[in-house]
């Protein structure tokens, strides 16, 4: 007997979005569900199938989830509207939350955003109060000059190739002195933009807003970003902002951005599941206690596991 049930869903405007809802196979359902989505251009299963594994591990702990392809990614069709990618991502996640609300009776959510998903997740959290938790995995980061210099130097020192050390040190100096390095650092990919919602100011304002609203936030960085973290180095100038006091910050050098090894994946799963359980249950109570304490989702709200369900754009 599996610890989970899964239902493929087709939803959103014109049924253009594709996702999978995972619910616990047995026992009570937590009153908060989890949203998983694309990392870069990888379809909804996530890097190394991480979203699938995470969804099933969460279901075994009583947490339902939806993993979804945003418009134009994976199996979802491009949006018919002309919104920019970030705005469309917010609309798509809201459609997913509407669907879960309709199908499971769950109306509060945590979002696990990997890489580009972290940037999208931040915009969703700002726009929609149904989000009560946001985990950003290798998302926005703002290392200062000292941290950038140190991480580059560490890599230069670790390079075994002859002459590599001097070449890399020269590169470090060149980049450190370059005016371009005054820009916030980050993982540059095709989903990065230079729009207003990618600025350091937007990040800081948004994070403070979420802190005021009591949204649980975690910034989770891996050994792909840097080798050592001294004092929340990747927060850079924002370490003394009000949100930083509530923020959970985790640097896990044993994990890599692409979750390439099984050990990396397992460490990631444990950390994320534990965080989600803490956010959902607060005091570490079990899903059963949480449901008894006021959650209104239960087995009766479960969907059929045999048929894909087409829904028109569900309204909240």
């Amino acid at each position, binding site marked *: 007997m599996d610890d989970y049930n899964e239902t493929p869903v087709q939803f959103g405007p014109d049924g253009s979005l594709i996702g999978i809802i995972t619910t616990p196979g047995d026992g009570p359902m937590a009153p908060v569900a989890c949203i998983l989505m694309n990392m870069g251009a990888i379809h909804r299963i996530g890097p190394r199938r991480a979203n699938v594994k995470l969804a099933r591990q969460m279901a075994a702990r009583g947490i339902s989830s939806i993993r979804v392809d945003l418009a134009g990614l994976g199996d979802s069709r491009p949006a018919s509207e002309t919104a920019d990618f970030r705005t469309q991502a917010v609309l798509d996640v809201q459609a997913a939350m509407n669907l879960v609300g309709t199908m499971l009776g769950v109306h509060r959510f945590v979002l696990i955003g990997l890489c580009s998903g972290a940037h999208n997740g931040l915009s969703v959290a700002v726009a929609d109060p149904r989000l009560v938790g946001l985990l950003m995995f290798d998302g926005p980061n703002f290392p200062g000059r000292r941290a950038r210099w140190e991480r580059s130097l*560490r*890599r230069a020192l670790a390079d075994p190739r002859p002459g590599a050390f001097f070449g890399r040190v020269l590169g470090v100096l060149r980049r450190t002195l370059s005016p371009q390095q005054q820009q916030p650092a980050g993982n540059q990919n095709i989903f990065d933009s230079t729009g207003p919602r990618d600025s350091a100011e937007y990040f800081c304002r948004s994070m403070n807003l979420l802190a005021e609203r009591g949204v649980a936030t975690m910034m989770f960085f891996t050994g792909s970003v840097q*080798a050592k973290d001294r004092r929340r180095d990747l927060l850079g100038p924002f370490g003394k902002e009000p949100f930083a006091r509530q923020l959970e910050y985790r640097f896990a050098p044993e994990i890599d951005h692409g979750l390439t090894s099984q050990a990396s994946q397992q460490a990631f799963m444990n950390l994320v599941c534990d965080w989600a359980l803490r956010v959902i249950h607060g005091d570490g109570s079990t899903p059963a206690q949480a449901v008894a304490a006021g959650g209104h989702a239960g087995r009766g709200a479960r969907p059929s596991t045999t048929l894909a369900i087409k829904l028109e754009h569900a309204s909240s």
Partner: protein
Amino acid sequence: MTPMLFGPPQRRLFGLFHPPERERDIAVLICAPFGQEMVRTHRLFRVLSDRLARAGVAVLRFDCHGTGDSSGDDTDGDLDGWRRDVCTAHEELHRLSAPRRIVWLGSRLGATLAVLAARSGRSDPSKVILWDPIVDGARYLDAMREKHVSALEASYWIPDRAWRRRLADDKDAYTDELLGFAVSPTLRNQLRALTPQSLQLTASHETVVLADPEDEDANRWARMQAERQIPVRLSPFQHSLVWTSDPFPNSAMVPAEALQRLVAEING
């Protein structure tokens, strides 16, 4: 496009059916590669399926047990089970599209599974297209574990030199987790037992092998099958798709030449 689950309750398979937009007599079953190569080709096969459906071809894409969105853990996957999954998917596509004739398109390990499934006699594809098939499992394992270490080195800010030393010193190193996808001892043994001699086509359908002229294993294997009087056509095909890369910039996700060639072979 319709997402669905099909197959027996203990082995539910996730599939996406692309209904044809006009009448023709052909349907296509796509057998995807394994692991990171499956992730890498997802977009290509989605675009290919859309294009075929517009041209009147019914298409079913699916994930084998323990892969993608289908049930099961990584380690539940094995060649015998996956071969049966191909046959189950064939039956599902037949149910959805009969009386159309069904063409199989398999790539990499998916092509190998197509050969094994066709040989089982449970299904009756009218044509099988094999794109860069894996015909030597031991070599495939070796190549994948080398790529696994390369991926680790590219991913960490400071790579660990011990990874490459272990790769050189231990022939089993990393064969239990190829590019992040766990491999059971059963699957590993099945892959090691897979040789060009053990993988044999049947004469019950036409076969096309699309292979890079530099892929000596696949070319030699196809010629060997032809010598057995099997109806097989070897067709040289070079493309820019990097099977194991992440879908990032400077690495085409849907190479035009691959798309055009596959459409032509299916329609041909």
